[in-house]
């Protein structure tokens, strides 16, 4: 038999339990979506930077082109380029037929909420690498 002061208690308990299960789910959704977005953005940045570096005529112009391309692609992807790390290397050196390897990394903060932004805490580094070949018949 239910007492009169127990009316509605099952409803409240169910909702509280549901909220307790849904909050971590929403949090996980936000983190996974940010990881996905960061992976896409860093992959795009590495590809753009590799393309630019493979067309550069010197190390200095290649470095500047890589920085510009990475910043452009990350901003397009909704990511702060200040927090990203980009490195590149021409193997063996910047010349016809050589390979240019670009690596872009970005830290995804784990503690964050969707649409609300990031909260301080541990990060997962997302890294993308792209290798571009310098045209062996280019005119430089």
């Amino acid at each position, binding site marked *: *038999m*239910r007492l009169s002061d127990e*009316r*509605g208690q*099952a*409803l409240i308990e*169910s*909702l509280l339990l*549901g*909220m307790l299960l*849904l909050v971590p*789910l*929403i949090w996980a*959704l*936000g983190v996974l*979506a940010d990881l*996905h*977005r960061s992976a*896409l*953005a860093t992959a*795009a940045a590495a*590809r*753009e930077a590799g393309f*630019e570096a493979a*067309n550069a005529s010197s190390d200095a112009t290649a470095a500047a082109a890589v920085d510009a*391309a990475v910043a*452009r*692609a990350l901003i*397009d*992807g*909704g990511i702060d380029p200040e927090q990203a790390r980009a490195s590149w290397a021409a193997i063996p050196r910047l010349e016809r037929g050589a390979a240019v390897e670009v690596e872009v990394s970005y830290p995804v903060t784990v503690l964050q909420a*969707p649409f609300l932004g990031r909260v301080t805490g541990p990060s997962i580094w997302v890294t993308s690498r792209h290798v571009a070949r310098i045209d062996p018949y280019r*005119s430089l």
Partner: protein
Amino acid sequence: MRKRRLLVPARPARAQRAQDGSALLESIFALLLLLMLVLGAIQVAFVLYARNVVAASAHEGARAAVELGRNANDARTVASEVVRSAAGGLVEQMEVAVSVQAVGDLSIVRVRVTGRLKSFGVVPVRIPVGSVATSVRREAPV
């Protein structure tokens, strides 16, 4: 012998019958609310996924537009195809706008992809999603 009085007074039969149905009603309300919350969480996931797919499609389109022998029409085709293959019918009313700006020997291609997320129940609003991507083509010296 003296009868001892109970602390909890006995309920009338009619009140007990009324209580029997209230538990079922409460459970139904709780389940409906939880269902709405779960569907809302699924919709949030779809919004986040669609946003990422649209961003990726804009970039793929911009990349396609600067490749040798390709143009703005290829950017539209590639961007649409990426959204179609990755998100199916999730994104509706999709539009791809391509603009090309010449700066010196550079051609700056900007692709904007916009659309609306298909509504499925909880939020009867088609949530807009969109993204812009830029790519640069260096014109070959003549």
